[in-house]
């Protein structure tokens, strides 16, 4: 997951999906294509043009190009020819591809729920304006701002046998003898990476849920309190149902983030040992830039695009249906 990109995406997606539902928010001025004397339409167009151009050149063109390449035996240098769906067949026959798909799914399955639960708990802790709660929000969010690549480098140091903090801590707690070589063992490395990710990105879920929680009217809780319900009951019967939308939103975003995971694996294990910790984006990267099989790599990319776009579509649909 590329962090900052995802934060930005979170916000804009949320907004894109919500905005059209806010009544009376959208139509500031009467709709119409014609500009006015003070606001000539040509100026509007000129202002928007550079941004639109960037999107065309650096997103839409490569997108179309991806489809094209995936149907050819594209080499980095030299000529190429159309080979139809051969690349897709190659990918489909490649056990490494399926291993990467499976690994990505396992990784996603492991981290998604803990991120949601931890993010939820964080939001519960900081939602009331108690002394220090602003500071806590900052602290919860800090790892996310620092970014996964930097944290991964630091974790490499702390995962070393005998000297790394992870081992020192486990030894101090008498759980292990502190000699574990985390990063050269598939399941152990996966566990460590998952722990790092849960720790690092829960803060973003917290932020999403927090703004949802703060928009629940206080009276709802007060009347529930009068009815004598317990705290747990109030969370379960009031907060969670009212947060359905931010919760599904954060789930979807964290699933997309997990599907696109790269840095932490590249840096901490390089995908190894063997292929044991290779998620799909790392598989694509290796296929394209190490094995130089651009066509096959791009075919895998196209599949990834379709999957992620489908999830995004579900997300937009969910948000729309809720209103």
């Amino acid at each position, binding site marked *: 997951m590329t962090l900052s990109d995802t934060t930005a995406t979170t916000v804009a997606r949320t907004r894109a999906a919500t905005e059209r539902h806010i009544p009376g928010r959208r139509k500031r*001025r009467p709709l119409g294509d014609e500009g006015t004397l003070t606001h000539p339409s040509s100026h509007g167009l000129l202002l928007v043009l*550079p941004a639109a151009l960037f999107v065309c050149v650096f997103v839409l063109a490569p997108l179309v190009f991806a489809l094209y390449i995936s149907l050819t035996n594209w080499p980095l240098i030299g000529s190429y020819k159309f080979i139809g769906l051969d690349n897709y067949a190659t990918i489909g026959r490649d056990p490494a591809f399926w291993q990467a798909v499976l690994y990505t799914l396992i990784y996603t399955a492991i981290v998604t729920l803990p991120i949601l639960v931890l993010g939820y708990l964080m939001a519960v802790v900081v939602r009331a304006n108690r002394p220090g709660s602003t500071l806590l929000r900052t602290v919860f969010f800090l790892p996310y701002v620092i*970014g996964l690549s930097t944290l991964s480098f630091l974790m490499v140091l702390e995962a070393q046998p005998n000297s790394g*903090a992870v081992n020192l801590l486990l030894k101090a707690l008498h759980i292990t003898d502190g000699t574990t070589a985390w990063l050269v063992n598939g399941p152990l490395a996966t566990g460590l990476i998952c722990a790092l990710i849960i720790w690092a990105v829960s803060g973003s879920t917290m932020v999403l849920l927090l703004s949802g929680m703060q928009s629940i009217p206080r009276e709802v809780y007060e009347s529930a309190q009068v009815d004598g319900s317990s705290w747990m009951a109030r969370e379960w019967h009031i907060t969670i149902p009212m947060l359905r939308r931010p919760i599904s939103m954060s789930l979807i975003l964290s699933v*997309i983030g997990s599907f696109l995971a790269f840095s932490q694996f590249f*840096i901490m294990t390089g995908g190894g040992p063997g292929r044991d910790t290779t998620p799909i984006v790392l598989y694509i990267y290796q296929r394209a830039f190490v094995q130089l099989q651009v066509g096959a790599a791009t075919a895998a990319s196209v599949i990834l695009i379709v999957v992620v776009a489908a999830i995004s579509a579900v997300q937009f649909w969910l948000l729309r249906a809720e209103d």
Partner: protein
Amino acid sequence: MATIAQPTRTTRSRPRRTGGGSGKGRSEDRVKLILYWLAAFLTVIVFVVPLLWFLMRSLQPGAVIAAPPDASSFFDLSTDNFRGLRAQGDMFRAVGNSIIVALGTCVLTTLLATMAGYGFGRFKFRGSGIAFGLILVTLMIPFQAILTPLFIQLSAMRLTDSLLGLVLFYSTVNLAFGTFVMRTAFMSVPDGLEEAARLDGSGTIGTFFHVLFPLVMPGMATTALFAFLAAWTEFLGALTFLTRQDLFTLPVALVNLQQGTYGQLDFGLLAAGSVTAMIPCVILFIALQRYYVAGLSAGSLKG
């Protein structure tokens, strides 16, 4: 199990709570407060201590980081690693490259997004819906998935192995978010304010600088901050689009360091390099948190 139980109504002024006695509400508040402080304490341990630990690591010699802790040397802290980093030409240049790329992205994204936000937020023109949809598409297409075609395209445009290429790419990645933020910022400017300036004879650009700029400045700060942080921490794109060592940004140079490309892997340098990558994020985030939160809550679920 915690369900909503039918409360037993009594003559007490304070409503009774399930299974509770009088004054339960207040004692629950106290329990909550104690739990809160407990959570705060745990937070410090779980979230602050690791960061301080990393900071300390960057001040330890590499040999100490790599060895089992020994009380006699563990707290021999010095800035030698950072001096080593300074002396390591490639690493030092990488920090410079990162600064150039992050600042360039920050400026270009803010410029493009402000223009687009102005256009979408305050003008009506044919195709505005399509153009906005176009920019929205960027959000649905993860750049991780179009890396190969993008690489081929950028190298055809001679934009690989180029900091400019990286800036253009990062700016596009951040553009959708920025445009959203800026469109909202421009839309929330009251029409009257702008019209007054227009009637005084200001043109599109003049109105922006004289009237709109101070009003949309917070939005611009949000956009700039997000763009800077995104460019500073980005890894996959830089790794893919840069092959010349003298152009590496900090995260990519750290990979080299980690893999021992610059000679024997020195844990001290790796720690110091990572902390160098970390510190600007922490400082910027804490200093400009207001704008960061504004960006996030601008996208929050108000519906």
